[in-house]
């Protein structure tokens, strides 16, 4: 009757040593639309593909600015991301109040990591069904962290999560060496190209379905959407189209 006897709660191991509820939560991340993050020596960039439930509806928000120095991009259950982002906002303000300093990104990442892990260890709780990319700048410079529903957090140079994100990660891996020395504009273009690579054939990046989050040393985190990103989309992809044209000539 049941496909699986060990997936009723998040505290029971299967005989193979797996916790299915956590794995299902990680599947939820893969259902979400793709988000990409990259850091250079001076900047941290998030790029996200927004989805609309239907033609007439608005697009689901993918990037949430948390504090002046950082923001998050989410893939998975947006409502769980809202809970986490509220928590992060509150912790960030607490750090400014008690210590008069912007919260270090490693610290806020560890906090939500601990919170998510607790959910996988208490009966009656469920893991968060959302993956996050946390990008921004603190006293130690620009950072990008990945957060998973299991509570695993890792510092990354570049990362993509969400549906078909493997394609984006392939792009990022190919260009890994360039990121560290990239300028702000180059980094944004890399992020957009990685995002584009994960799209299916019939889809394109447009002003409506793309979000960017940029922060840098001496530059506060800001989200860019709509008309503000038109220029970046244009300059990033006109060259790509030319290259595409050349390679087609070679084929014929």
């Amino acid at each position, binding site marked *: 009757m049941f496909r699986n006897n060990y997936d009723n709660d998040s505290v029971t191991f299967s005989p193979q040593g797996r916790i299915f509820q956590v794995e299902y939560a990680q599947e939820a991340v893969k259902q979400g639309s793709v988000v990409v993050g990259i850091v250079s020596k001076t900047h941290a960039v998030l790029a996200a593909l927004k989805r609309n439930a239907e033609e007439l509806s608005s697009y689901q928000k993918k990037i949430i600015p948390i504090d002046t120095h950082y923001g998050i991009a989410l893939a998975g259950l947006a409502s769980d991301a809202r809970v986490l982002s509220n928590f992060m906002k509150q912790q960030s303000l607490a750090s400014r*109040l008690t*210590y008069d*300093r912007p919260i270090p990104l*490693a610290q806020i990442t560890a906090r939500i990591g601990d919170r998510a892990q607790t959910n996988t260890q208490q009966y009656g709780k469920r893991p968060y069904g959302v993956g996050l990319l946390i990008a921004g700048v*603190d*006293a*130690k410079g620009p950072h990008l962290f990945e957060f998973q529903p299991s509570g695993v957090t890792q510092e990354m140079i570049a990362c993509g999560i969400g549906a078909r994100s493997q394609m984006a990660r392939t792009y990022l891996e190919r260009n890994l060496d360039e990121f560290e020395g990239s300028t702000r504009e180059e980094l944004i273009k890399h992020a957009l190209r990685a995002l584009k690579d994960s799209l299916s054939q019939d889809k394109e990046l447009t002003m409506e379905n793309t979000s960017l989050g940029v922060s840098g040393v001496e530059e506060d985190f800001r989200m860019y959407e709509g008309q503000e990103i038109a220029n970046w989309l244009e300059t990033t992809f006109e060259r790509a189209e030319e290259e595409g044209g050349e390679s087609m000539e070679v084929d014929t």
Partner: protein
Amino acid sequence: MDHFPQAWGRPRDDIYGSYNPSYLPHNKGGYQAHPNGQPNTHTQSPIVTGTSVIAIKFKSGVVIAADNLASYGSLARFTDVKRLKPFNKKAVVGFGGDVSDMQYLDRLLSSLDVQENYRSGSSGHGDEEAENRAMMSAKNLHTYLSKVMYKRRTDFNPLWNALLVAGLDEKSTPFLAFADLLGTTYSSPTLATGFGAHLAQPIMRRAVPDEEASQNLEREKAVEVVKQCMKVLFYRDARSMNVYSMAVIDENGVDLKEDIKLEAESWAFAEGIKGYGTQTV
């Protein structure tokens, strides 16, 4: 059948009588029954005390000093109490007031330091300059301590101290600020707590009248003024002693000396003082 899960597994009230909640922790509704029916009281006055702490900001850092005496009322009870506590390479805290509260705050700062180093160690960057920049600054520490002090006075259970936090802020510029048992804070190029505020502050202000003067002040001159102030304090503050600690904090870290003897001590001036006690001029 008792249908309330919170009662399951507990001694039944109808057999054992209801639980005496006064034994519970305070935050769970517990209370200590006081024998004379009076309410709980907290610290009403300090017991073993340290006297003044003084500090001066100079060009590239801060000098801070406090003597090594802990008094029990007017009794010079302990003569080896170190009242300057280095927090890290960027900050030193000087404590005046109750010594047991100082020891509590010292333990609090130790655990804060452990937390901070555990965090920064875990990122595994190994970039020393970045570690240094991200290290908690004297300003961060002062903000934290002032919140601790204010919280405790709001609970009507104050930590009976006056603190000076000396060191560098996150931009590595000299930082000096005050916090006390009321949660009051202020900052100035020269600061003194307790009697020092009356006896030493005027002397320090003569050397450093304003922020600009402190930015032009050499380290040697700042140390000299602090030494002079410690001598005046020993002569005129009856709860002081002639052995003191002094720390200099600058980009090179904390230079702390804990057993400095007062130099060229002389009471010859004393017989010239008129106007006290039974003298009739």
